């Protein structure tokens, strides 16, 4: 028997199809359809979306699910539940697991777990280099055969330019985008926060933005030389945004992502040594923050991604120097982005949704992010004006390292639908 879905009276925003207006949306057997017959309408599961935005399921191309190896922090089941609660129907997981995703067996193991445990769509990435050591190319072709959608040593950055050059050339052969965590490690030894006024004042070792800019510039050079797509992850510096902007104007195939936290917070947040604000790349200055936002607004940074990085409370409850880098973001990304971009009046809803749906999907050629007829019925309903008080204890992932803890934000996910089935109903996870 067919499963029929009829979402009524919502404000349907589908930027890929330039649709923005009140109307209905239909799905049959997990696929978006133009219309339903009278009998199908009678048999449909009806969702009254009056007052809600109905958009393609959100897409996050930068998530750490910690499986295998660190499942005490997160696993594919818990991470995808967090994604569902955050309105994400498609996520891309990073390969810096334990063991790392540098061999077909590990990717197969991840995919097996995805099949068994994921409640949203998950696509794995593979490593650029063996053991992420930056010394020897990973078997990228074999990883592609296992279904990876991009290659990256995320969490680390290939320091050797010759290896990076070969990785870029080699990955291009398989039409795989290279995602890069841009960090010149020689400049960031022992660094725990942005280098600047606050690091000087607090006596914490600074992480200069130049360490990011240099690698972005290197990647622009390689992208141009080999006509390869290199995606700059979590861009945090003003000059880094500018380098990407100028490269794109020259037609170079680079792309970039902004995280909600780099758009929301600055390094001043570290002033009480709270490790919940310790992240890599670090929170930077107000000038950098504004530049990242401008980068999103002018299209330099096409996509918003969370860099969801779970760590246990015990690990984060430490001296700033000792605590690990990273914060979670799946369950706050929409509200935080709405706050910075839409409620501030800097862009409209459709603009933001585009960057969290089809434009994100297009970076890695994922079949997601649109409500086109025939597309998979991955749909998110949210109320952009409903206020939430962020409470990580109510989150669905395993970790609570959230810098928005206690903040009031506007934007509540009312329903998340994957392939026509509700996985999050606004209050609880409903996926089996």
């Amino acid at each position: 028997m067919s499963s029929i879905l009829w979402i009524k009276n919502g404000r349907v925003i589908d930027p890929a199809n330039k649709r923005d207006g009140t109307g209905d949306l239909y799905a049959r057997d997990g696929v978006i359809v133009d219309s339903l017959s009278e009998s199908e309408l009678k048999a449909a599961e009806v969702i009254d979306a009056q007052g809600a935005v109905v958009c393609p399921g959100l897409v996050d191309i930068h998530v750490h699910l910690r499986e295998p190896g660190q499942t005490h922090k997160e696993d594919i089941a818990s991470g995808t539940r967090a994604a569902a609660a955050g309105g994400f129907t498609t996520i891309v997981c990073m390969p810096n697991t334990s063991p790392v995703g540098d061999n077909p067996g590990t990717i197969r193991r991840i995919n097996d777990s995805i099949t068994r445990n994921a409640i949203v769509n998950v696509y794995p990435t593979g490593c650029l280099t063996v053991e992420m050591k930056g010394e020897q190319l990973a078997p990228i072709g074999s990883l592609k055969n296992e279904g990876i959608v991009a290659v990256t040593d995320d969490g680390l950055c290939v320091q050797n330019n010759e290896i990076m050059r070969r990785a870029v050339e080699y990955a291009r052969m398989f039409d795989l985008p290279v995602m890069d965590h841009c960090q010149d490690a020689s400049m960031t030894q022992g660094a725990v926060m942005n280098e600047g006024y606050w690091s000087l004042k607090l006596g914490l070792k600074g992480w200069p933005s130049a360490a990011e800019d240099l690698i972005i510039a290197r990647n622009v050079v390689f992208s141009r030389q080999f006509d390869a797509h290199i995606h700059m992850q979590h861009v945090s510096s003003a000059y880094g945004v500018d380098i990407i902007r100028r490269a794109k104007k020259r037609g170079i195939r680079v792309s970039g992502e902004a995280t909600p936290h780099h758009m929301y917070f600055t390094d001043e947040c570290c002033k009480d040594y709270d490790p919940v604000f310790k992240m890599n790349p670090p929170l930077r200055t107000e000038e950098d923050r504004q530049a990242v936002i401008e980068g999103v607004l002018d299209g330099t940074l096409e996509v918003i991604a969370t860099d969801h990085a779970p760590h246990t409370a015990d690990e984060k409850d430490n001296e700033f120097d000792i605590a690990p880098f990273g914060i979670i973001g799946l369950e706050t990304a929409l509200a935080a982005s709405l706050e910075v971009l839409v409620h501030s009046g800097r862009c409209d809803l459709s603009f933001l949704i585009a960057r969290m749906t089809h434009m994100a999907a297009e970076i890695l050629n994922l079949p997601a992010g649109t409500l086109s007829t025939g597309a998979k019925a991955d749909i998110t309903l949210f109320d952009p004006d409903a206020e939430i008080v962020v409470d990580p204890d109510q989150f669905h992932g395993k970790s609570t390292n959230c810098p928005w803890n206690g903040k009031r934000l506007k934007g509540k996910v009312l329903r998340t639908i994957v392939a026509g089935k509700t996985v999050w109903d606004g209050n609880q996870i409903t996926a089996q």
Partner: protein
Amino acid sequence: MNELIANWTRKDLISIESLTREEIDTVHALAKHFKEIMATNPASLPSLRGRTILNLFIEPSTRTRIAFEIAAKRLGADVTLVEQAASSLTKGESLRDTAQVVEALQADTVVLRHSAAGSPLYLSKILNVPVINAGDGAHEHPTQALLDTFTMREKLGQSLEGKKITILGDILFSRVARSNIFALNKLGASVTLSGPATLVPDGFRQLGVEVDLDLKSALADADVVMLLRIQHERQTSTHFPSLGEYKSLYGLNQERASWLKPDAIIMHPGPVNRGVELDSSLADSNRSVILQQVANGIFNRMAVIYLCMAANNKNLISE
């Protein structure tokens, strides 16, 4: 004096930055009081008899540790020392766990020296007893700044308004420099930083100080030159080429000392790398107040311990 003590409300001493000028004055007034008492009656004061102070020194220290120990004993307190090598922290125990053990053992105050900036603040949020920062990474060393400014006041007069204090050397990695910058700004002095650009970033100007990399002009008109230990073991080799090069460009010798005003004093938090940042002939000269700094460290630490414990237990004042 009791009124001053009663007005002190801080349980902890974490930083100079968070203190008001009045609070600095209070510490100095009480330190002066203790110094006068000790000059006539060096036997212990009974003020903290029966109290236990835990010196938790996770990072090696000799001078500061001994100064705190003597200060606590002069106030009649018992002192227990936990050093890095003997600490469970070397076995992977977290600072939070250690803190809870401290509380369970009913220590009345913790003096913490730690290599991680921010660790005393972290500890103070966990513990109900006073936490006194004895140096946290490159952040602050508040009691050092208190004794330094106390010494300056003794030598230059109570008001430091308009006095030029030049701090020379490794500013970037120095908690002493940061605490002194904050203290001297609050006391109205004018602070000039000097040394190689890699150790004296221009960004320090945002803390309200001058950065003058020309040693001659940095020393000219200074009332005080405060030298900092070049911690070659802490810095990567990228910050300056060698101790020899540092000495040849920035070491204070007799010739460079002649650029100072005749009555300018020379300070150093110790230990001195003799012949590197400071020549022995100057370290031992009558312009040097290095040993007075050490002595004043006792009285200022007595004052800080007493004030914080009194703020945490008002009964102390009447006892």
